[in-house]
């Protein structure tokens, strides 16, 4: 039950082959990030770069620390050591608000949307950090609130149309199918036009058709808007098609970092991620 025409998914798939990356400029550096929870190590000394306008995939077995790493990048977790360089600025600690303001958008593994709000209202919350009006103006819809609301509504409608969500906008999110909820989550992250988009398993729980649709969308976001994307995904087939750059984690350590081709042939990756017997038969 997907709307194939509404998102022009044909065009997406055509545009989705990972060509060369436009820029060599680095947008995000994580340097020596270590994170532990009450003595249990989640990440140890993870260092990698993400270049501007590339799609970087984080892969690794369950519990490898992928989600933790995303959470450190947008400040939900505070790393015990290491630093993050985003867009030329160094951060010992990032807060989620800071991250959002500086242009880091994200989606969540388990659609952390507001179930009772409509899809459109959920998308509008993605613009909260862009507001210039005061709480008082917002609360009573006075002063500059009207103009800003119209402006935000227009932005939200643009994203909604881009993701083919028009016919779902006024429905409350809890009534929407899972795949559509995933798109609403993406729309909420996209509406603020982030420089860096963090996607935590955007295709989890989807069937093959829905996955291909989502792959097309992610690719289109990257090629049309030049948005740099860091995504976590378990489906290796999709990752190989989509990513320009792959970072592999295992037990909180980085075990490989390179192009899909390099990672595919890396012995450690084959052992840790794909299993000992991979490629023998």
């Amino acid at each position, binding site marked *: 039950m997907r709307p194939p025409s509404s998102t022009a998914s044909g065009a997406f798939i055509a545009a989705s082959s990972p060509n060369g990356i436009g820029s060599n400029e680095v947008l995000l550096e994580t340097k020596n990030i270590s994170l532990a929870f009450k003595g249990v190590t989640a990440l140890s000394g993870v260092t990698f770069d993400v270049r501007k306008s590339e799609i970087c995939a984080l892969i690794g077995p369950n519990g490898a620390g992928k989600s933790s790493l995303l959470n450190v990048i947008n400040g939900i977790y505070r790393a015990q050591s290491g630093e993050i360089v985003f867009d030329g600025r160094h951060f010992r600690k990032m807060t989620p608000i800071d991250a959002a303001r500086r242009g880091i958008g994200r989606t969540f593994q388990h659609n952390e949307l507001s179930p009772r*709000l409509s899809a459109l*209202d959920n998308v509008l*919350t993605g613009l909260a950090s862009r507001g210039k009006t005061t709480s008082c103006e917002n609360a009573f819809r006075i002063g500059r609130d009207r103009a800003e609301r119209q402006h935000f509504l227009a932005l939200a409608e643009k994203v909604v149309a881009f993701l083919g969500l028009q016919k779902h906008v006024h429905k409350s999110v809890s009534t929407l199918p899972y795949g559509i909820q995933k798109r609403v989550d993406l729309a909420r992250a996209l509406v603020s036009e982030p420089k860096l988009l963090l996607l935590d398993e955007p295709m989890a729980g989807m069937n093959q058709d829905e996955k291909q649709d989502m792959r097309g969308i992610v690719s289109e976001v990257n090629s049309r808007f030049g948005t740099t994307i860091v995504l976590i995904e378990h489906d290796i087939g999709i990752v190989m098609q989509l990513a320009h750059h792959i970072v592999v984690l295992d037990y909180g350590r980085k075990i490989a970092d390179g192009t899909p081709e390099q990672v595919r042939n890396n012995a450690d990756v084959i052992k840790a991620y794909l299993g000992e017997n991979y490629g023998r038969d």
Partner: protein
Amino acid sequence: MDLFLQTLVAGLLAGVMYSSVALGFVLIYQASGVFNFAQGSMVLLTALTYVSFVETGAPFWLALLAVLAVMVVCAVFIERLILRPLANRNPMVLFVATLGLSYIIQGAAQLAMGTDVHMLDLGIADDSVQIGNLSLSKFDLFATATAIVLVAVISFVFNRTRIGISLRAVADDVVAAQSIGIQLPRIWRIVWSVAGFVALAAGLLWGARQGVQFSLTLSALKALPVLIIGGFSSMPGAIIAGLLVGATESLADFYLGPLVQGSVSTWFAYILALLFLLIRPTGLFGERAIERV
């Protein structure tokens, strides 16, 4: 029949008072998952501050604005000194913090403004008006009108404005709300300010009825069964449960009172709440499990 109707309507109107206190609890519970034990103290604080201003000769509107300002200042301090350092902690930690806050507010209010019982005159005589066969208290009708306006304003802000959308997003998922750039401190300050305004309305209504004194903090205890029946996270629930408690209390007093030879209304609401806990623990409109408290 007239007598039954009379008792019922009087009870419903009294129930509005319960709803007004319960509403303050629901606001804060919705936006931060905290059962704010200090709501009762806030009711006392607002009434005491209002009376203190009025006693210096300030007119009604000026005193009202002054109390609103005091509540906003309180909200800013509470957010900075209590909520922010304890953010993302277990709800029980926050609950205990509000318990401490309750004593601080009570102590500070009485230290600054004394422990005397003050009279609070809103200028509405507690006469009765005749509507059909019913004779209703003018004051109760005024209280009802106030509560309706309050609920209408809060509903508008919560459902029809961007700030309301942000409030609800925070209520549903704090981590996600932060990640998309909603400023939690700002939301908390707003919610606690609004809860302060609600406390003001409740403080004035209760204060005018009972005199402004320490026992106003106990209004919080009356709100507890209302919250259990209505559900901690539902504003309509708080209103309906308040009315229900008011009505059943009044009817029980009238019909059961003579049988047990004593006042039923002191305990009836709690028995009702107990029944709800057994049969429908999330309350009439509650969405989250009560263990979250």
